[in-house]
């Protein structure tokens, strides 16, 4: 391999032009810079989290969580309807995406292997994972909102489901691939059908990885905003008509109360909502990473 020869060529231990002092100084310099880089990255994270917690914490109260959102000026403004809407949209999206994505992952890992169809689909999934979420919003707008003639929470759920499918499919395939072939052969040798082998043996032994993959995908779409702008939109009402009318949700509530409002009180609502959604997303992430730790590679 090429780097070996290069590496040996660039290590002139006795080169008088590169005294040890200079090399050590260089090393120190780079190490300092990279520590600074790390501090910058971590510091920025703490700064962002700190701002959300301090500003959002001021807004947070029981009334804030249980009152529905209202236009500026009315008393008892809250986020309860948006919280419920986000919950409904995310749950529906999961209900659509998880079965399809699991089956697709199984198809790729157990039935596809190296066939041309499977490779093509893998490529499509990679492409889908890179498609900006706002374009999925446009897509669902044409696909669902225009024919239904109305924005709806369900349209938002479809958009989020489309975002989830490639992510879950990819992790499912990776996780199932990690299951040793001995298990598969042993199950088949005992007389299992392929269905039993896959569902009861392979999926079961990869269970933790699958659950954590699903949770991470849910966490990723729970805070998505861009596709919801074109699908679920927003409403200051309880999400009663999930299938036919705009549905309140937290991410769009944040956008509405910060960019489209000059009032400090509305900004406060936005910070509170940001804290709530950040807590939900971080919590799901932490649960996925600690309770359902991926098997060591």
């Amino acid at each position: 391999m090429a780097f070996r020869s290069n590496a040996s060529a660039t290590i002139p231990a006795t080169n008088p032009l590169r005294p040890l002092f200079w090399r050590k100084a260089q090393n120190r310099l780079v190490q300092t810079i990279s520590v600074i880089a790390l501090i910058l990255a971590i510091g920025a994270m703490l700064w962002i989290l700190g701002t959300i917690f301090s500003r959002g914490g001021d807004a947070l109260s029981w009334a804030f969580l249980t009152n529905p959102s209202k236009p500026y000026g009315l008393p008892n403004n809250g986020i309860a309807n948006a919280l419920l809407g986000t919950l409904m949209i995310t749950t529906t999206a999961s209900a659509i995406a998880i079965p399809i994505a699991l089956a697709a992952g199984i198809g790729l890992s157990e039935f596809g292997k190296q066939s041309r169809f499977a490779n093509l689909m893998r490529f499509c999934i990679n492409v889908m994972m890179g498609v900006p979420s706002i374009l999925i919003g446009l897509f669902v707008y044409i696909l669902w909102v225009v024919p239904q003639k109305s924005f709806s929470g369900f349209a938002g759920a479809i958009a989020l489901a489309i975002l989830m499918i490639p992510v879950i499919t990819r992790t499912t395939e990776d996780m199932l691939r990690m299951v040793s072939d001995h298990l598969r052969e042993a199950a088949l040798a005992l007389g299992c059908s392929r269905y039993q082998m896959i569902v009861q043996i392979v999926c079961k032994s990869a269970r933790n990885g699958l659950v954590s993959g699903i949770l991470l995908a849910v966490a990723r779409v729970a805070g998505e905003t861009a596709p919801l702008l074109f699908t679920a939109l927003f409403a200051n009402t309880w999400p009663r008509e999930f299938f036919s009318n705009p549905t309140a949700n937290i991410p769009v509530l944040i956008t509405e109360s910060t960019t489209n409002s000059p009032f400090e009180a509305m900004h406060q609502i936005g910070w509170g909502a940001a804290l709530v959604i950040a807590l939900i997303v971080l919590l799901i992430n932490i649960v996925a990473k600690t309770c359902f730790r991926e098997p060591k590679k």
Partner: protein
Amino acid sequence: MKRINFLDSTFRNVCLICTGVCGAITVALVVQLSSASSEAWHTFGWGLLLSTEWDPVTNVYGALPAIIGTLLTTGLALFIALPLAFLCALQLVEAPPALSKILSHGIDLLAAIPSVIYGMWGLFILCPLLQEAFWLLEIDTNGFGVLAASLILALMILPYICAVMRDVLKMTPALLKEAAMGVGCTPWECARDIFLRHGAKALLGGIFIGLGRALGETMAVLFVVGNIIEIPSNLLEGCTTISATLANNFAEAEGLQQSVLFALGLILLLMTFGIQVLAHCYLRKTAQMKG
């Protein structure tokens, strides 16, 4: 026995159909966006890509400002984030295991924060800060613009790039590193000559990931970019990106303007598609070289 065979083949077919759904969505996305934007392409032709006008009153539209804004913010964000991410990844690989584990989790969590929160933080914290900083330098700006958008984007893509780089750097054989240390390399020389060469793939992988995320990011950019449909003359001026234009104008758009917005979406899709194809070819090429 027959029942089992039936169950097996049904299961197989269901799984393969679901696999096909992923492909179908990709194709449908391209087809839908193309057909929805056909009016714009018919009206303006290729001129749409080169025109800088944007006038809803006379119904004349051009995509160039949005395209340039997208490329500019993405490029600048990568320029800021790449070196930072590489140094962070190096530090994470070199640090003691316990510390590196905690820091890795921290950076992973940073990647999980919804982008709308980054945008909000940029709007209320970063932009006023930039405004004051430049005010001290006696430069008059409101803080919103290319620089603010790039900084926020850089912060957003940093954890992604860093995670990819860290994973690939970790795969450097310990033997190589030990050999380099053994002949007297300083840690930085070891990093430069061993990790960097072995991890060239990591760098490129990180670039592709970062590019993909930064190109299509909407919310974080929308809050801080200024949303002026013009080609910016300097980094402190407001501009727009494709995704921000979409989010801003879609609600009021009708007819031709909506079609133009779909055309913008198609352009963005083709950009990300191109990056994916490049990444795919690149990975295949490196796989062949190794195999």
